[in-house]
């Protein structure tokens, strides 16, 4: 009797809950709606206030908002430009010049940082105690010192102590290094140089075709093809052949000392050198750490298994360890490259004319268009980083573990 009554009670209680006699605000569905409505209302109020304030402030300061200023003449010169630029050109042109300079330093930085990172990362696994320690010291020193300090150090403590123009350090009277920068010879294409450029393009395509053919052949017959040597041969051989066929259509433009400076050749300004060195040394330390983590993430059993089936040490590295390590390394590389691009904005400290410096720095000061300039710059950095992310994700798909 008693027992039955209890069950009844429980059932009744349960029914009560199920029928929803509880307050509606205890229902997670309604709750979510309420919370999100409140959130949106709060955000809307926040943006309404700041937009209102901003418009009021801009009006008070007499600044006309909008992108109309882009067409105006900039009126200032830019230290270094990859495309022709004069101070009478528009702010839009300044934007493009800055963008190209940012891209230039980013590409140089990424290439050099990757090289340094992989060299020092692999050096950590050397059996030579000294080499290993060199790698450790490199990583721990440059990773733990602020990048800005390193940029300033290279710029004003190292490059500023180089000899003057008259006593420049020179290498074979072709490459000069002095306090004004690095001067290197330039190849100038004459008639017929198009053939060489076409040859380079053909070589690149040929390497990709050869790669897929070799893979197909190996899948079918098991025969391996010396891909690396063949690609190197094509990449250097074909353009060389084209150069000879076209009768060497290049003239070397050497830098020559004239008056107080050098003329001709390519000039690498010290700002660019300092920024590139600092960025690549700093990011290289992080990449070395990533490479080390990647190689360490491969269980030692993999090496042992590879040895037990009789692979040579070099093959173990290239066929067993590296492909597995890349799975860890590539996502880390992705974020390191992105932070390198973002860090290139520190050019402002040494007046290298990157996008941030010439556009957000100078243009903002002259026009007062804070929101527009910062917005445009941010969009560019987002776009560049998304591009890097896209490329690295494509690459990552190649090295990823394929689930079957």
């Amino acid at each position: 009797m008693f027992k039955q009554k209890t069950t009844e009670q429980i059932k009744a209680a349960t029914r009560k809950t199920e029928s929803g006699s509880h307050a509606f605000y205890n229902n997670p569905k309604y709750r979510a709606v309420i919370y999100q409505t409140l959130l949106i209302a709060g955000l809307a109020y926040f943006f309404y206030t700041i937009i209102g304030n901003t418009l009021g402030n801009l009006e008070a300061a007499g600044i006309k908002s909008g992108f109309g200023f882009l067409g105006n003449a900039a009126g200032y010169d830019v230290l270094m430009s990859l495309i022709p630029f004069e101070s009478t050109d528009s702010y839009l042109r300044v934007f493009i010049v800055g963008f190209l300079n940012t891209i230039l330093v980013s590409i140089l930085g990424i290439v050099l940082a990757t090289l340094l990172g992989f060299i020092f990362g692999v050096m950590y696994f050397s059996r030579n105690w000294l080499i290993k320690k060199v790698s450790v010291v490199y990583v721990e020193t440059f990773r733990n010192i602020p990048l800005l300090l390193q940029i300033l150090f290279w710029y004003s403590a190292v490059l500023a102590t180089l000899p003057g123009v008259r006593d420049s350090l020179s290498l074979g009277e072709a490459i000069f290094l002095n306090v004004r920068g690095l001067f290197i010879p330039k190849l100038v294409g004459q008639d017929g140089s198009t053939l060489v450029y076409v040859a380079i393009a053909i070589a690149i395509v040929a390497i990709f075709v050869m790669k897929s053919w070799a893979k197909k052949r190996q899948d079918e017959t098991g025969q391996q093809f010396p891909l690396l040597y063949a690609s190197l041969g094509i990449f250097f051989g074909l353009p060389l052949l084209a150069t000879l066929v076209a009768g060497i259509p290049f003239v070397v433009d050497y830098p020559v000392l004239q008056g107080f400076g050098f003329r001709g050749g390519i000039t690498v300004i010290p700002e660019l050198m300092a920024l590139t060195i600092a960025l690549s040394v700093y990011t290289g330390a992080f990449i070395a750490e990533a490479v080390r983590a990647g190689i360490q993430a491969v269980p030692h059993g993999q090496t042992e298994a590879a040895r037990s089936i009789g692979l040579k040490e070099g093959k173990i590295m290239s066929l067993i360890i590296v492909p597995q390590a890349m799975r860890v390394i590539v996502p880390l590389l992705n974020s390191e490259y992105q932070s390198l691009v973002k860090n290139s904005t520190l050019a402002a400290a040494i007046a290298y004319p990157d996008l941030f410096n010439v556009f957000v720095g100078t243009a903002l000061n002259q026009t007062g268009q804070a929101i527009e300039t910062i917005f445009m710059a941010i969009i560019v950095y987002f776009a560049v980083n998304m591009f890097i992310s896209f490329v690295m994700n494509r690459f990552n798909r190649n090295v990823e573990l394929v689930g079957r």
Partner: protein
Amino acid sequence: MANTFKSDPIEFKPAVAQPAPDSTVGIVAWMRVNLFSSIPNAMFTIFIMLGLANFIPGIIDWMFISSTWSGVNQDACVGDGACWVFVKAWSQQFFYGSYATDQIWRVNLSLILLFVVIVLSFTLPASYRLKVSVPLFLVLPFVCIAILDGRLLGLEHVNTDFWGGFSLNVLMAAAAIIVAFPFSFLWALGRRSDMPLARSISVVFIEFFRGVPVLALFFMGSVMLPLFFAEGTNVDKLVRVWIVLIFFMSGYMAEVFRGGFQAIPSGQYEAADSIGLGYWQKTLLIILPQVIKVSMPNILATFVMLFKNTVFLLIIGIPEVLQTLLTALSNSNWLGGHAIEGYVFVGVIFWVCCFGMSMLASNIEKKLDTSHRN
């Protein structure tokens, strides 16, 4: 017969152990294995040794032997070596900025408070550690501001223009990460939430602050932020930078916490559900303590990044340590080219702090790592 065995046992006497062969012990053997194991290895070793022999004596000579340590001004530096007098003369500026000399105890007090709170959070008994140290941490930045500013406590008012030096770097980084903590936790929860709007807002926020260069954020703080406030409001420069750092930090930390949340086994969530805990009880009492524990190495790594980034403040003209150094280098009494000494000094300070924290992080990581790899 049985007795003979007893009375005359055959004693086993092991031969005296031979010493290990000379080729496997001692410094020579160590060098043979680690430095000269093969011909290329030996060549590398000799090459590096030669390089070191070329540079190290010169550096040591410059830093210690022919350097000048005593004196008050530039005239004392006559040798070829480093002029440490420069660093000595400017050391108060490097550490405390232009803070009035008789008020420096207030900066020291703030630093000591920070240190005490950190030590307490590690040493208090586990039963009430979180309950005490979390409120202490959250109150700390405001107490420090009150001490440094002085108006609230009836001390002499020191304008923020005079705050500076390395202590500003430390306090700024600490204040930013402490306030960013609860925010980042909320953003991470938002990103994991089932509510689509809350989730997308969190994602946009986090990705914005992670994707934008820090320098752009500082420019926004110094140029755009004043536009956002009502006309006539004048917000202090340091407060604006503080706000920027908090947002920047909470974007990064939210991702650290998200990783932490993912590392907690789903059994923990289910167990909390099964004993009838509500959402906030479950999150704050069961999940959060575990998340903080597993993310500790990453939190430290993020803090190191933030700490290094505080030197970026110089670009918007705040007198942190590097800005002070640049001021010192351009001072007319010290135009002797002391750039290397200055950069080495500031670099070493940062290096010691950051390296210490990364060591701490990797120690915690090792302690937490209970896997059996390798």
